[in-house]
C-alpha cells in the first residue's frame, strides 16, 4: 500500500464533505474570497461562522459597539468576560479560532464615517454582508456596493422574523447543479453514430443473457424507428398510441422454451422509460431567453467569457447543432452487459466531444475577432460550459436603494399578489419598513421598553397604513395582531432566528462566491411564529 498521507492532505480531509458539493475549483474560489461583515451582531457572527468553517480567505468585521450584557446573551462568539470591550475585536478573535486557515480582521471605526470618508475602503471585498441595519443605512451601503460592483447581502433578525435581501449586478452561473436533470438522449433525432450502434445489436439472439442485457435505450430506439416507419414518420402521439408502443416492447421479450415470456429487466426499463422515446429534444426557454440578451449581440473586448460563450453557443445552435444545444454525453445506468453499455456510453461521449470541438471553434473565432488571447477561455472551460449548457442561469438582483426609493409597478404588483393571502410572510416586509419609519421619528423601535408595547401599536399602525399607500397597495390591510406582535418583539434579536438567517445567508454567500448553484432573487422573509417563509422578487 502506498502511504495514504500522499493521497489526501489535511485540508482535503477537513473539507471532504463540502468538496463533494462544490469541488476543488469551488473551494479555491472560497479560499480567495474576502468577506466584509457590517455589525458583529448574533446574526452577523452566525453568518461568518458558517463561512469561516468551510474556509473563506478572509473576513473583516466593521463594528464600533462595545459588548453589552444583552449581546453576550444572544451571541455565541462573545463571553461574559468581554462585556465592555470592543465587539469587533472579540467576535473576530473567537471566530478566527474556528479555523486557522482563515484570516480575520476588524475595524472599530463607525460605519457612518467609513461611508462618509472612505468608500474606497470597501473596494477589495468580494462580498459585503450587513446585519441589523435599518432602511436608511441599508440604502447607503447599497449605493456604495452598486458603485463598487460588489455583491451585497442584507440580513436582519427582528423578533421571530427574519429578512434576507440579495443585491447583485449580474451573476452568471454555469454550474447550477440542477436537481434531477433530464438526460439528453436524442432518441427523436438519433445521430449517425447512434444509428450504426443500433445496427450492431442482435435483437433476435436466442441467448437468454444477451437478450436480457440489450441496453434499454437501444430497445426504445429500435421500436421508435419501427413505429415511425409505419406511422408516416411520426412518434406515438395519443395515449392509445403510447399504450400500443409499450405493448410492442412487451411482446419483444424473449420467448422461453415453455412458451412463456422471459422476465427481462431491460425490457421493464424500456417500458418504464418509454416517455424518453417521444420526448422532443429542444432548447430550454431560459436558454432561448439568454440568447436574446443584449450582451450576446454586442460582444466587445470587455465582454465576459460567459457572454462570449453564450454567443458561441447560439452560433453552434444555428450551425452544427441544427437547432439543438451540444450533446451532454451522459447516459443513465441500465441493466446491460458491460461491453454494450460502455460502447453505447462511448457513442454519446464521442458525439459530445465532437460538439464541444465545434463549439470551441466558435469561441476561438470570437476571441480572435475581439482581439483577445485564445487562452481567455480554456478548453476545460468550454467543456464545462457545454456540459451545463441547458442549465445556465443569469441572476440580476436590483439595488436595495432603488427599491427603497420608490415603488415600481412590479413591486406593487408583487406585493398585491402576496398580500392577497393575509397569512403571507410578505406582510413582514411592510412591517419591517414600518418599524424603521417609526425608528426614524422616535429614535427607538416600537416596544423598546416593556411599558411601550401597547402604546406603540396605534402609531405603528399609522406608519403601516401610510406605507401601504406609498407602495400602491392600500387596498390591503396588515392584520392587527401582526402589528401588535411587531411591537412585542421590540427589535429583539433572538439567537435562533439569527442562526437560521446565519445558515441561509452563508449558503447564499457560498453560491455567490463559488458561482455555483442558483442564489435567491431577491427577498426572503421568514416567519418564525409558524415556521413558514416567502421568497419574492421586490
Amino acid at each position, binding site marked *: 500500500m502506498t502511504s495514504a498521507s500522499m*493521497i489526501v492532505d489535511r485540508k482535503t*480531509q477537513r473539507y471532504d464533505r463540502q468538496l463533494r458539493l462544490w469541488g476543488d475549483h469551488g473551494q479555491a474560489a472560497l479560499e480567495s474570497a474576502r468577506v466584509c461583515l457590517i455589525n458583529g451582531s448574533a446574526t452577523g457572527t*452566525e453568518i461568518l461562522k*458558517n463561512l469561516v468553517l468551510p474556509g473563506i480567505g478572509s473576513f473583516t468585521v466593521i463594528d464600533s459597539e462595545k459588548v453589552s450584557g444583552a449581546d453576550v446573551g444572544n451571541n455565541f462568539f462573545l463571553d461574559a468576560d468581554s462585556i465592555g470591550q470592543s465587539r469587533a475585536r472579540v467576535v473576530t478573535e473567537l471566530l478566527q479560532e474556528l479555523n486557522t486557515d482563515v484570516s480575520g480582521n476588524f475595524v472599530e471605526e463607525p460605519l457612518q464615517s467609513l461611508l462618509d470618508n472612505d468608500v474606497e475602503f470597501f473596494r477589495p471585498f468580494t462580498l459585503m454582508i450587513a446585519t441589523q441595519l435599518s432602511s436608511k443605512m441599508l440604502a447607503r451601503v447599497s449605493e456604495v456596493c452598486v458603485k463598487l460592483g460588489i455583491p451585497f447581502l442584507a440580513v436582519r433578525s427582528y423578533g421571530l422574523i427574519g429578512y434576507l435581501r440579495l443585491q447583485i449586478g449580474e451573476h452568471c452561473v454555469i454550474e447550477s*447543479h440542477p436537481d434531477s436533470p433530464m438526460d439528453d438522449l436524442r432518441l427523436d433525432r438519433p445521430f449517425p453514430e447512434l444509428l450504426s450502434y443500433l445496427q450492431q445489436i442482435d435483437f433476435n439472439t436466442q441467448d437468454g443473457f444477451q437478450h436480457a442485457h440489450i441496453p434499454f435505450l437501444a430497445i426504445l430506439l429500435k421500436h421508435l424507428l419501427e413505429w415511425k416507419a409505419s406511422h408516416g414518420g411520426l412518434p406515438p402521439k395519443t395515449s392509445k398510441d403510447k399504450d400500443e408502443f409499450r405493448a410492442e416492447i412487451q411482446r419483444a421479450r424473449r420467448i422461453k422454451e415453455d412458451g412463456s415470456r422471459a422476465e427481462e429487466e431491460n425490457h421493464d426499463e424500456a417500458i418504464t422509460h418509454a416517455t424518453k422515446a417521444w420526448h422532443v429534444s429542444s432548447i430550454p426557454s431560459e436558454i432561448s431567453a439568454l440568447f436574446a440578451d443584449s450582451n450576446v449581440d454586442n460582444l466587445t473586448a470587455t465582454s465576459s467569457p460567459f457572454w462570449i460563450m453564450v454567443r458561441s453557443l447560439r452560433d453552434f445552435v444555428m450551425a452544427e447543432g441544427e437547432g439543438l444545444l451540444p450533446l451532454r454525453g451522459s447516459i443513465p445506468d441500465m441493466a446491460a452487459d458491460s461491453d454494450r453499455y460502455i460502447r453505447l456510453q462511448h457513442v454519446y461521449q464521442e458525439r459530445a466531444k465532437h460538439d464541444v470541438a465545434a463549439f470551441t471553434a466558435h469561441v476561438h473565432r470570437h476571441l480572435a475577432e475581439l482581439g483577445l488571447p485564445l487562452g481567455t477561455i480554456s478548453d476545460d472551460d468550454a467543456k464545462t460550459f457545454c456540459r451545463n449548457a441547458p442549465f445556465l442561469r443569469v441572476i440580476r438582483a436590483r439595488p436595495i436603494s432603488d427599491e427603497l426609493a420608490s415603488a415600481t409597478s412590479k413591486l406593487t404588483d408583487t406585493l398585491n399578489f402576496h398580500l392577497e393571502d393575509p397569512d403571507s410572510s410578505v406582510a413582514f416586509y411592510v412591517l419591517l419598513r414600518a418599524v424603521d419609519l417609526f425608528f426614524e421619528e422616535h429614535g427607538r423601535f416600537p416596544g423598546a421598553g416593556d411599558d411601550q408595547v401597547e402604546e406603540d401599536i396605534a402609531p405603528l399602525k399609522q406608519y403601516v397604513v401610510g406605507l401601504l399607500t406609498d407602495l400602491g397597495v392600500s387596498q390591503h390591510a396588515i392584520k392587527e395582531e401582526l402589528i401588535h406582535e411587531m411591537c*412585542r418583539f421590540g427589535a429583539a434579536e433572538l439567537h435562533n432566528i439569527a*442562526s437560521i438567517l446565519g445558515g441561509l445567508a452563508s449558503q447564499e454567500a457560498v453560491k455567490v462566491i463559488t458561482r455555483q*448553484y*442558483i442564489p435567491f432573487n431577491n427577498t426572503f422573509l421568514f416567519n418564525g411564529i409558524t415556521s413558514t417563509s416567502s421568497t419574492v422578487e421586490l
Partner: protein
Amino acid sequence: MDASTETAAQSGALDATAPSPAVAGSNNARPASNAIVSNTNTAAAAVAAAAVEDDDTEGEGEDVAPRFEDWAGRWDHIDKLLVRRGPFAQPTFEPCVELRDFLLEQCRILVIGAGGLGCELLKDLALSGFRNIDVIDMDTIDISNLNRQFLFRQKDVGQSKALVAAEFVNRRVAGCKVTPHFCKIQDKPEDFYRQFQLVVCGLDSIPARRWINALLVSLVQYNDDKEIVPGTMIPMIDGGTEGNCVLRFLQFSVRLFVGLSFTALFCVAGLLYQGFKGQARVILPGMSSCFECSIDTFPPQTTFPLCTIASTPRIPAHCIEYAKIVLWPQAFPDRALDTDDPEHINWLYLEALKRANEYGIQGVTYRLTQGVVKNIIPAVASTNAVIAAACASEAFKLATGCSSQLNNYMQFNGQDSLYTFTFEYEQKPDCLVCSNIPLDFACSASEPLRALVERLSEQPFQFKAPGIRGLGKTFYMSAPPSLELSTRPNLDRTLAELGLQDGAFLQVADVAVPLPVQLKLQFRP
C-alpha cells in the same frame, strides 16, 4: 386530526403545571423562585446520577450547585417574548419573569446527536435560556467533521463528540449545564428518557430516530377517558438533513399550499440531491403524526445486485463495490475492512481502478471510492445551522408557549434559490407505532413462517432480526443463537401448522423498535 388532538396540541407550552417526573414536586405553575431552586437541584442531582460520563465536568458541586447569577441584561432579547403578552401565544401563556426561570432552572431537555445538527442545537438551546441540557452520542470526532461541527478542533479528533461538545458549551455559555452521555441511545433505560420535558433529535441515522420515536410514543399514558395523562407526553423535535423523498407529499401540498409552482419544484427536487436540503418537524407523540408515520418517505439505501457487480459492471461504483465486497475478503481473509483507514480505502481505490480499466469504465477516483465505501452524504455548515435553529426555535416556543408552533413539518430546499415548505403531515391511520391498533397483515394459511419473516424485512417494517411471538408461544427468535437454533424449524412450518388462524395476533419484536409491534393476521381467501 380529531377534535381532542386539536385542543391538546394547542394547549401548548410544556406546561409547567403538568407534574412531570423530572421535576417531582414542582406541581405549581409559577412557584416562588426559591422553590424552583431546590427543585432544580433535586433534578440536577438525578441527572448527575444518571450520567454515564460526567466525571470531568469541572468545578460543578456534586449535590448543591449554587444558582448562577446572571449579569445585567443577559436575557433582554428572549425576555421580550417571555414577559410580554403576544397575540400568537398559546392560550395558557402567561407572560412573567418566572417563565424564564422555568426555562433556566427547571426545564430539562435532551439533545440526541452531537454532530452537525447536535453542535448547533446545543449552542442554540443554551442561548435560548435552556440550562439543563443532556446530550447523547456514541460517536467520536473525525477530521471530516471539522468543516461544520464547530465545537470541535483538530486536537479533539478521536474523542467523544458528546463530551467535547458539552465541555465547550459549558465553557462558553456561563451557567449552562450540558451533561454528556457517550453511548448509544438504546443503552439508556426508559426512565432516563422520562426525565425530560423535551427531546430534540439531530441524527443522521433513520434507525436511531425510529427507535427514539417509538420509545417516546410508548411513554404516553392515557387515563380512563382516553385522554393523555399530563406529563407523559414528551414532544420530539426532529431535524434531518437528508434529501428525503417528498413526492408523496404532493397530496398534502395541493390542498394546503397556495403556490402550486412551489409544490412542483419540491416534487422534482426531493429525490436524490443532498447537501442543501433538510427538514424540521414537531412530533407530539400520541397527538400528531410520528416519525414512523413518514418512514417510507426516506429513500432506501442504494444497493447494487451482486450479479451486476460481479459480472456486468458498468459504472465506477460497481467496480468499487466489487473491490470492497469480493476482493478485500479474498486478499485479507483475517482483516476486517476499516473504512476510516486511508490505506484501506487506497487499496480499494487501486483495485477498483484496475477493474475499471479492464472494462473501459471511466471515473474511479479516490474521493469517489471513499464516498461509495463509506456511503458519504455531503454536508455543510449552513444547512445544519438552518435546520438546527428551526428545531431549537420550536423547542423554545414549546417550552414557554410564547408563540404558535410549527404545524408540523417544514421542508427546506436551498439548492435552487431558497424555499421552505410547511405543511401538516397527517397521522397514518395504521401507523406501526402510534396508531395503537394492530396492523392488518395479509398472508395465507399455507405459507411458511419464513415468508412472513421475509416480508417483515421489507417496507414498512424493515426489521432485520425479528422475534415473533403469539398465542403465548415463541415462534421464532433471531437472537440469541441458542434460541434461534431451537426456533429455526418453525420457519419451514406453515402458519396453519403453527396453529395460527385468520385474525390471530402476533407480537413482533425487533431492534428497530423498542416495543413489539402487534400484527393481526388476515388470511387471503
